[in-house]
């Protein structure tokens, strides 16, 4: 069978314990359901997965080193490119870490703007995930409906940020542009619209018996496993743990809003699916409250750093709840022009690390289902 007996570095390390009657296949780096260039070496016994090992690094960009050789302000565009689907959360994590380090005050309006835009971005990320997950499961149409709604979000986010995907919108001490009244009006029109779409999503997909059979009782990742692997976000909430950084380490003005942390105790792919679907509604609820109570004022602090600013020495950590889980920025500064060390804790990376254990013994199709339910963004894993 094997035409290329040698294999590459990782395959050679993977193979020795393989049995005769099993099949070692490479899922990826170019595979439709790995959402980018992720490679998973899988040992198959028939359709069952005996063991598997993810191989990363195909889109590694060394963001951490780039942080060390460009100035504090110049690092901004990098933050939007780590996780292109929820770029504003990464923006926020960097802003938060440096603001904590330097003690920069953020005006109240800026905090509200951050909440609105970040939550809107979360909705768009979840919508895309929903479509892409259904694509993994073989349904082609939902992603088009999701894109239809997401398009409106992107148009709206373009109004203040000017970009559509890799936002670079937040600044130390605020944001780079104010929200226009037109944006707020359009947003308040959009929220009821999206709410009216959600029942359609539910009837088309969530209630669909084929989908239910595909995701229920698949890919158990329970609380203990989450702890050992450091899984966060919808994965841990799908395991019944109400862990959300917005509540656990309240940052910004999240403590002023009334929202629920959706949890499902089943710990399977369907629980994670439902957590995300509920989160869309919760995010809409937060946005609604934020629009109603957004104060007037400056959108950028007067003490906001100038371009050639350097942070004072020290170290700071800041965590943000991204669409995929807990995003943590750790910055250490020696008072120099550039950060001394930037460490990015990306949620997808930790969530994926449990895949090898979760996918042991399942059917190949279930592995795809599990992989999709983790909601991976490969550039965030590889950084």
């Amino acid at each position, binding site marked *: 069978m094997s035409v290329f007996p040698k294999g590459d570095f990782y395959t050679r390390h993977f193979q020795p314990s393989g049995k005769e009657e099993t099949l070692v296949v490479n899922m990826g780096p170019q595979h439709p359901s790995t959402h980018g260039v992720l490679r998973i070496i899988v040992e198959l016994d028939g359709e069952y997965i005996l063991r598997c090992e993810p191989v990363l690094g195909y889109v590694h960009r060394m963001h951490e080193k780039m942080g060390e050789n460009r100035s504090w302000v110049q690092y901004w565009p990098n933050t939007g490119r780590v996780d292109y689907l929820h770029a504003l959360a990464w923006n926020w994590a960097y802003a938060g870490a440096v603001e904590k380090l330097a003690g920069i005050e953020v005006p109240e309006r800026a905090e509200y703007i951050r909440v609105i835009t970040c939550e809107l971005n979360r909705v768009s990320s979840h919508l895309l995930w929903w479509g892409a997950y259904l694509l993994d499961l073989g349904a082609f149409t939902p992603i088009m409906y999701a894109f239809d709604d997401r398009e409106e979000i992107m148009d709206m986010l373009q109004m203040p940020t000017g970009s559509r995907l890799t936002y670079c919108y937040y600044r130390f001490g605020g944001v780079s542009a104010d929200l226009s009244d037109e944006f707020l009006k359009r947003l308040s029109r959009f929220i009821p619209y999206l709410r009216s779409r959600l029942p359609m999503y539910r009837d088309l997909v969530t209630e669909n018996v084929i989908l239910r059979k595909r995701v229920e009782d698949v890919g158990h990742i329970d609380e203990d496993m989450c702890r050992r*692997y450091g899984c966060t976000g919808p994965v841990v909430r799908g395991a019944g743990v109400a862990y959300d950084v917005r509540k656990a380490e309240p940052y910004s003005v999240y403590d002023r809003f009334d929202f629920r942390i959706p949890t499902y105790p089943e710990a399977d792919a369907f629980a994670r699916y439902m957590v995300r679907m509920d989160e869309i509604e919760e995010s809409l609820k937060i946005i609604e409250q934020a629009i109603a109570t957004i104060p007037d004022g400056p959108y950028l602090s007067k003490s906001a750093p100038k371009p050639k600013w350097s942070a004072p020495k*020290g*170290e*700071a950590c800041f965590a943000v709840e991204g669409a995929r889980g807990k995003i943590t920025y750790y910055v250490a500064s020696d008072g120099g022009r550039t950060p*001394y060390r930037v460490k990015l804790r990306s949620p997808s990376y930790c969530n994926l690390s449990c895949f090898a*254990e979760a996918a042991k013994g399942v059917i190949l199709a279930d592995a795809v289902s599990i992989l999709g339910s983790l909601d991976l963004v490969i550039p965030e894993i590889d950084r």
Partner: protein
Amino acid sequence: MSGRNLSFPKLCALGGDMGQMGIAEIHHVRPSQVRGAASLLLDRGWFIETIACLDLREGILVNYFYAHFTEPGRIVVRTLVQREEPEVPSIADIFQGAEWHEREAAEMSGVRFPGNPNPLPLLLSEDEESHPLQKAFEDRKPISNIVDEFIKAECWPAFISREEIEAEAEKRAEEAAAAKAAADAPAAPKAAKAAKEAEA
């Protein structure tokens, strides 16, 4: 933050303020005590966030970040390893998720984690020999340049003696200065010429 009473063997616990720096507690341990800390934290329900290495003049500072699903706060367990022998025992059998963090730290900062079940490169290519997050000697800063209080802490000398580092730094600086002077001497006329050309 009080009342947690995490009593694993450590050198000292110092610093940390959730509001100021986002880290509730910082515990300094010896490399051999990392595993004990990890298993205690797992028992108490903490999960590992990430492992971050800082390349310092004194050595490589390995930080383990832990957080909790129900309690607020973040605990950092940090240990310093000498550059000559950068080894910390692996905690991948306690926190399975640490396997990847350790592999990343190993290839990026050159710390070895004996006991890691799968010590392959993770993000870099398999034949990469350099460690990108290791800094050049002149870029390495002593820890006092980042955080003062660690130096004041009594536990720091347990890691390393201050004089040693300073002596080595001085020696290096002298060498560098000598080398520079040697290089500059013949290069000076050239540089002047180049400057003239640039002007023209």
